[in-house]
């Protein structure tokens, strides 16, 4: 697992690490039982505050994606689903983007529509 930080995104660094682990699990780059790099290893990999890495790992534990084993490290939980590539969804999204661009909609507006659609689900869920 190799992390990177986007320093200009406005997204808190710990959140960026959380999202990268979730994406790696979803895309099959991390499997159940795989070990995450230690905090020290991450600090040796990218320039980052160790407290931030701790915080990201705690958040991932809270989400039930990883578990800390005393003295051993942090591991991806056995029950998480991994390695789905969502091929059909990807191609229908690409079709939709092509269609939208054919209508002359700019990428900025597409991103706005995308964000608003994601939020819509969040608002109606409860």
């Amino acid at each position, binding site marked *: 697992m190799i992390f990177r930080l986007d320093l200009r995104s406005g997204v808190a660094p710990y959140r960026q690490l959380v999202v990268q682990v979730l994406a790696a699990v979803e895309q099959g780059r991390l499997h159940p039982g795989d070990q995450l790099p230690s905090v020290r290893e991450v600090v040796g990999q990218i320039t980052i*505050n160790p407290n931030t890495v701790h915080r990201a790992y705690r958040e991932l534990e809270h989400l039930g994606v990883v578990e800390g084993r005393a003295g051993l490290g942090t591991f991806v939980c056995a029950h998480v689903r991994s390695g789905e590539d969502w091929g059909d969804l990807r191609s229908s999204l690409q079709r939709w983007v092509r269609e939208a661009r054919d209508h002359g909609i700019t990428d900025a507006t597409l991103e706005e529509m995308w964000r608003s659609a994601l939020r819509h689900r969040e608002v109606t869920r409860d």
Partner: protein
Amino acid sequence: MTDFAVQLTHVTKSYRRRDALRDCTVAIPRGRVAAVVGSNGAGKSTMLRIMAGLTSPTAGEVAVLGEDGPAQSAPRLSRVGYLDQERPLYRGFRVAEMLRAATHTNQHWNDDLAREHVRSLGIGLEQRIRDLSGGQHAQVALSICLAREPELLILDEPAAALDPAARHDLLQLLMQQVSGGGVSVVLSTHALDDVVAVCDYLVVMAHGRVVLADDLDYILHSHRLVRGPANDHRWPEGAVVIHGQRGARDGVVLLRLELPVAPDECSFEEPTLDEIVLAYMRQSALEVAS
């Protein structure tokens, strides 16, 4: 009770012709890496020198590592490491001589740690200080500071004027020390990218005042940009307007929201740290001007 690395309460520092610090109150928890940012002349260096016990405040209280006795007391000084922005080293010395001098001038000194750092950075002990690159010079100065094993490390613009690779190496050396535990760091900088990468607490200064001081993640979470004309006030209850430019048809305003942020409030855009810091600095400039 929260344990603080350093606590300033209503601190003012006056020089003959001007106030360098005005009524500054800030409390940095232990174990944090805190950044102090602000324009040149905002009072950053003065604040760091007061924290380090190198100068006394004109008014107000200073508590460092839980002690609030006289700032210059020897026991406290030995627990605090300070690195000036000039990173003073003897230019004619060899690195080994510089380390040997530090052995004699410091009460506590971990010589193995100093040598290990210098070696791991690829700097030869027989090299002369004046022959080192800017990056190596900064690394040797920081290594000496770290070998004193201070509980509080105060660094005035430690990465200024370094090339990107040297800056990365220096900050990484610092973060490795932090991941060992037991050290709190306060550093001043102009590079907000560095703040996002290595800091978890932020103090913004303007015109000698503290205009924002909080947990960095909290700061990023609790601010939003809202777009809209001047007569648009869609923002939620409890939101505070920090600064904005608004015209009759369009504008952008930075808000501070009360957490947790409700989902429908997320429609506001997330500002970058640059935008947040600039908004506070500009607002302060308006207040000073009026």
